[in-house]
C-alpha cells in the first residue's frame, strides 16, 4: 500500500507530462500507485481463487451439492412459532427461511419500539432534578451496559422457565396466564366488521392529519390556532366506534383454555420470544438512554430560557423547542443502536428462539450446504441493516437543520 501520496492534483499532473509515452518510472507516484493496486488486488484475487478452488474440491470430496436448489426441498424442521402457515411435512426449506426472517423481524421491530420508549424514559430520568431517580437511572445504565447481552438473555430465559407449569399457571386477569409455556392472552376473533373499523381509524387519522395541517396554515395566516383535538377525537375515536356499532358491534374473545398439559387457543408469547425481547430491550435501552441524555444536554441552556421567557408551557418547551433540536443529535447514534439491536437478535439461537440464524443453522446442518446457508444469513442481515439505515437517513434528512 506504500507509495500512496496526498491527493494533490498539482503534483500528479506536473509529474505526468502529456507526452509520457512508454517512459514509466518508479519515482512517478501515478505509476507506483497503479503497480501497488495491481499487486494488492492480484494478491487478494489469488487468495479468493485459492479458497474457492479449495471449497469446490472439499465439496466434491464430501459429495455436497452446490447452489440454492435445496430451498425447494421439503424442510422437515419443526418450527414452534410461525407467523405464516407452516407444516414441516409439506413446506420447503425456502418457506422455513421466510418464517425465520419474519421471526427475526418480529423481535427486531418490537425491540426497537420498546427499547426506544424505555431508553427515553431512563435518559430523561437521568436528567431529573430528583437525586435518587437520576442516580438509579445512572446505576441502571452502568450495570446493564457492562454485562454481556448473551448472559442477560440466559438470565431472563431462566426466570421465564422457572414459572409454574400450565396447571399451576398464574392467572392475574381472566384469560391471561403466566406459565413456563409462555404468556397466554385472549385473542380477538377477527371479523369483517373489525377490518372496516380499522379502515375507519386509518381514514380518521388521515383526516386528523389534514385538519392539523389546515390549523397550522390558519395559525400562520391569522395567528389564531383552531383546536385540533376535537377533530381528532371525532375522527379517530367516534367515527370508528360508529362504524363498529353500525356493523353490529361484534366482540368475541378466544380465551386460552387449559387442556391436558397445555393451553389451547388464544395468543401465545413463548418464553423464548419473551426472554429475547425483554433481554434485548433492557440491554439496548441502556444505550438509548445515554444517547437521549446527551442529545437533550446538547441543546444550549439559552434555548430553554428563551422558550421560558416567551411564556411557553413546559410541555410546549419540550415539544416545540428542545426535542426538535435534540433529535438532530440523537438520530445518527440511535441508528447504529437500532442496527445493533437487529444484529443482536441473532443471539436467539442460543436460547432456542427460531430466528433466521437458528433456522439457517439447522438447514445447513441437515443439507451440509454451509456456504449457501451463511450467505443467506448475511444477505438477510445486510438487507435489514440497509433498510434501517435508509429509513433513519431519510428521517434524519427530514428533521435536519435547513440552513439558508
Amino acid at each position, binding site marked *: *500500500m506504500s507509495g500512496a501520496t496526498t491527493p494533490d492534483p498539482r503534483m500528479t499532473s506536473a509529474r505526468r507530462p502529456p507526452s509520457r509515452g512508454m517512459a514509466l518510472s518508479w519515482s512517478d507516484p501515478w505509476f507506483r500507485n497503479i503497480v501497488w493496486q495491481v499487486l494488492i488486488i492480484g494478491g487478494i484475487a489469488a487468495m479468493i481463487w485459492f479458497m474457492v478452488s479449495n471449497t469446490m474440491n472439499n465439496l466434491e470430496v464430501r459429495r455436497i451439492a452446490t447452489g440454492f436448489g435445496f430451498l425447494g426441498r421439503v424442510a422437515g424442521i419443526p418450527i414452534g412459532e410461525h407467523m405464516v402457515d407452516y407444516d414441516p411435512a409439506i413446506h420447503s426449506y425456502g418457506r422455513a427461511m421466510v418464517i425465520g426472517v419474519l421471526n427475526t423481524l418480529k423481535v427486531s421491530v418490537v425491540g426497537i419500539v420498546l427499547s426506544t420508549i424505555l431508553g427515553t424514559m431512563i435518559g430523561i430520568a437521568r436528567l431529573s432534578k430528583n437525586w435518587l431517580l437520576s442516580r438509579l437511572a445512572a446505576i441502571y445504565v452502568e450495570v446493564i451496559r457492562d*454485562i454481556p447481552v448473551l*448472559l442477560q438473555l440466559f438470565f431472563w430465559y431462566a426466570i421465564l422457565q422457572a414459572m409454574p407449569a400450565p396447571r399451576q399457571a398464574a392467572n392475574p386477569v381472566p384469560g391471561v396466564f403466566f406459565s413456563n409455556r409462555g404468556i397466554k392472552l385472549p385473542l380477538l376473533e377477527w371479523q369483517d366488521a373489525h377490518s372496516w373499523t380499522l379502515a375507519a381509524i386509518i381514514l380518521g387519522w388521515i383526516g386528523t392529519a389534514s385538519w392539523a395541517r389546515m390549523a397550522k396554515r390558519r395559525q400562520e395566516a391569522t395567528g389564531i390556532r383552531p383546536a385540533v383535538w376535537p377533530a381528532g377525537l371525532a375522527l379517530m375515536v367516534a367515527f370508528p366506534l360508529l362504524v363498529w356499532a353500525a356493523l353490529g358491534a361484534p366482540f368475541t374473545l378466544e380465551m386460552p383454555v387449559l387442556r391436558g398439559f397445555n393451553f389451547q387457543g388464544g395468543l401465545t408469547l413463548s418464553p423464548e420470544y419473551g426472554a429475547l425481547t425483554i433481554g434485548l430491550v433492557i440491554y439496548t435501552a441502556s444505550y438509548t438512554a445515554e444517547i437521549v441524555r446527551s442529545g437533550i444536554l446538547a441543546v444550549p441552556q439559552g434555548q430553554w430560557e428563551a422558550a421560558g421567557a416567551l411564556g411557553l408551557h413546559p410541555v410546549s418547551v419540550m415539544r416545540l423547542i428542545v426535542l426538535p433540536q435534540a433529535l438532530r443529535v440523537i438520530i445518527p447514534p440511535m441508528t447504529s443502536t437500532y442496527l445493533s439491536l437487529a444484529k443482536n437478535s441473532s*443471539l436467539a439461537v442460543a436460547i432456542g428462539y427460531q430466528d433466521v440464524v437458528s433456522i439457517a443453522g439447522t438447514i445447513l446442518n441437515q443439507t451440509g450446504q454451509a456456504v449457501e446457508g451463511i450467505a443467506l444469513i448475511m444477505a438477510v442481515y445486510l438487507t435489514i441493516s440497509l433498510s434501517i439505515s435508509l429509513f433513519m437517513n431519510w428521517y434524519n434528512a427530514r428533521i435536519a437543520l435547513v440552513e439558508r
Partner: protein
Amino acid sequence: MSATTHIPTEARERPPILVAGPIAWARDNLFNSWLSTAVTLALIYLIVRGIAGFLDWGVLHAVWTVPADAKGQLDPTACRDAKGIGACWAFIGDKWRFILFGRYPYDDQWRPAICVVLFIGLFVVSAMRRFWRKELGYIWLGTLVVIGILMWGGILGMPFVQQDSWGGLPMTLILATFGLALAFPLAVLVALGRRSTGLPAVRYLCVAYVELIRGVPLISVLFMASVMFPLFMPVGLNPDKLLRAQLGIILFGAAYLAEVIRGGLQALPKGQYEAADALGLTYWQKMGQIILPQALRLVIPPMVNTFIGSFKDTSLVLIIGIFDLLTTGKVALAEPIWQGYSTEVYIVLAVIYFIFCYAMSRYSRGLETEFSRTARR
C-alpha cells in the same frame, strides 16, 4: 449594596438549617415538589424492598455449604429444600474452579491463574500513560509469549495441555486480548486504506470489508469461521477450532476498530498532513511519525469502548462450542445434582464481567475528561 456578601432576601429569612446542610440538600434534591416527593418515597420503598428481598435470598436463607458423604459426593438436599427461598452458594463453592478454569487439569490450574494475573497486569500497565511508548509493544509481546508457555506447557517440567482443555476466564481473556492485539494493526491498515486517495481500488476494498462486517452479526462471522473456514482450506488441513474462532473475532473487531481509527485520522487538522508532505517525508514516514501517533491518541477513549464491546462479545463463542467463561458457567449448570441454580451462576458471571468492563469504562471516561481538559487549555 453594602460590602458584605449578598444573600438573597428569601434565604436570609429562612433558618440556616434550611439553606445549607443535609436537610436543605434533601429538600432541594429529593422533596422539592409534591411529584418529586412522591417519586422519592416510591423509589425508597422499592429499593428497601429490593435490597431486603435480595439479602433475604442471598444471605439469610442462603445455603453456603452442603455436607459430603463418605465418598466425597456432595448431598444437595439442603439446597433443594431452600429452592426459591434462599440462594445455593454451595454450588458455586463446589464449582468455582471449573467455572474459572474450565476443564484445565485440576492440579495445574495455578498456570491459568497466573495467566489471569498476567493479563490484568498487562492491562494495568497499558493503561498507565508513563508506559505509552514503543517499549509497550515489547512488553505485550513478552507477556503474551509467557502466557502461551504457561497455558500450553510442555517445557520446564510443566505437562503439555491441549487447547481443547483450556477454558473459563483465561479463555475469555485470551480471545479478547489476542483479538485486540491482532485486530489493531489490521484496523490501522484498513483505516489508512479507506482514507487513501491515490489507491481507489484499495479504498473500495476497505470500504467493502468494513461495511460488510459491520452489517452482519458476529454470530454469522463466527459461524463462517467454524463451518465455512474448513472448506476454504486444502483437503486434510483443518485449523484448530479456537484458532478459527479467534480469527473470526479479529476480523470482526478490526472492522469496528478501523472506523474508530478513521475518525481519529479525520479529526486531525489538515495542516499536519501538509506539513509532513512539505518536509518531504514518504507516506509511511508521514503516517508513522506524524499522523498516527496523534490520531491514535485522539481516539483512545472510543477505542477502549470498542474493546469493552469486544470483551463482552467474546461470550458469543458459546454458540460455536468454545469453553469461555459463559460456557463453563452453563456447563456447570448441566451437572445433574446442581440443575436449576442458574441465577446463582449468572450473578457470579455477571459480577466478573462487570468488574472488567466497569474498570475499563471508568478508565476511558477519566481519560476523556483529561483529554478534553488538555485540549481546552
